[in-house]
């Protein structure tokens, strides 16, 4: 479920069940026109639906990182965000993007969900097997 759907009084009760964080990466550079920015966000929403809806009882979707700086800096920033998310209690971190060129090696993250090189979204079955494998690892 989305971070904003969790009520303050529910959090402590739900915390043991919500052990996975979904961190979306929009991957914009700032050079996008309004139409391109809209498209980026729609693509991200489409790929996020593959996880947010079927696994809403265990995955908390965090606010997205919309803009990307230089790749090395961004990679470092992403690593530190993942590290802090784990420190505050999440057991698993899933990074997700709709961009084909945004996939850095982040040792603190447990799984990347991205489209293939042609931009095709992964199938439900594909995601299901990856997530089951992650949770049973």
């Amino acid at each position, binding site marked *: 479920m989305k971070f904003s759907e969790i009520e303050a009084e529910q959090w402590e009760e739900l915390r043991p069940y919500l052990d996975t964080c979904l961190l979306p990466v929009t991957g914009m550079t700032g050079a996008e026109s309004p139409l391109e920015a809209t498209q980026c966000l729609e693509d991200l929403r489409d790929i996020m639906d593959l996880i947010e809806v079927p*696994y*809403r*009882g*265990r995955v908390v979707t965090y606010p997205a990182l919309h803009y990307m700086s230089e790749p090395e800096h961004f990679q470092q920033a992403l690593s530190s965000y993942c590290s802090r998310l784990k420190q505050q209690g999440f057991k698993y971190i899933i990074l997700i993007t709709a961009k084909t060129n945004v996939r850095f090696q982040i040792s603190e993250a447990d799984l990347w969900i991205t489209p293939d090189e042609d931009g095709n979204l992964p199938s439900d079955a594909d995601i299901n097997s990856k997530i089951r494998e992650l949770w049973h690892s």
Partner: protein
Amino acid sequence: MSNHEHQDSKHQPAQRNEMSRRQFLSYTLGGTTAFMVGGAVLPMVRFAVDPLLAKGGGATLVKVIEESKVTEEPQEVKFKVSQVDGWYKSETEKVAWISKDASGKVFALSPVCKHLGCTVFWNTHGRNEYDCPCHDARYSKDGKNITVANSPLDEYEVDIQDGVVYLGGIIPNTRA
């Protein structure tokens, strides 16, 4: 004495029953203002509460599969329903697991886990059960909760017309 009373009544102002000019103007202006304000506000109020006053029609039945294709083994079917939320109309995709029982009756279960709302799948572990990937809740073929969840899977309303299965709204499980 009577002479004195007569003199007092002479000094009192004359009592008139007609409306004064001031009252007439107050009533006229007040009435006109109320009419004009009402004319502007009432349509806006009616417009704002329109979705509340609209009749809530039952869920529309959607054609999903031919009855001859439904087997005792649950099958996943996806279908689209239009959803009205106040002023906002949208089309959402729904999923149902549809199968027949031993007597040949068709039923369809909602895949939404009753524990925390994840999506259950049929027979992932080869146990002929629905299981939830999130916290390992398990349900029988009829949707009866076996572990973790406290209640059975919901059902869809099922209607069969001319050999075709139609699904409607969500109802509480009638089989478990």
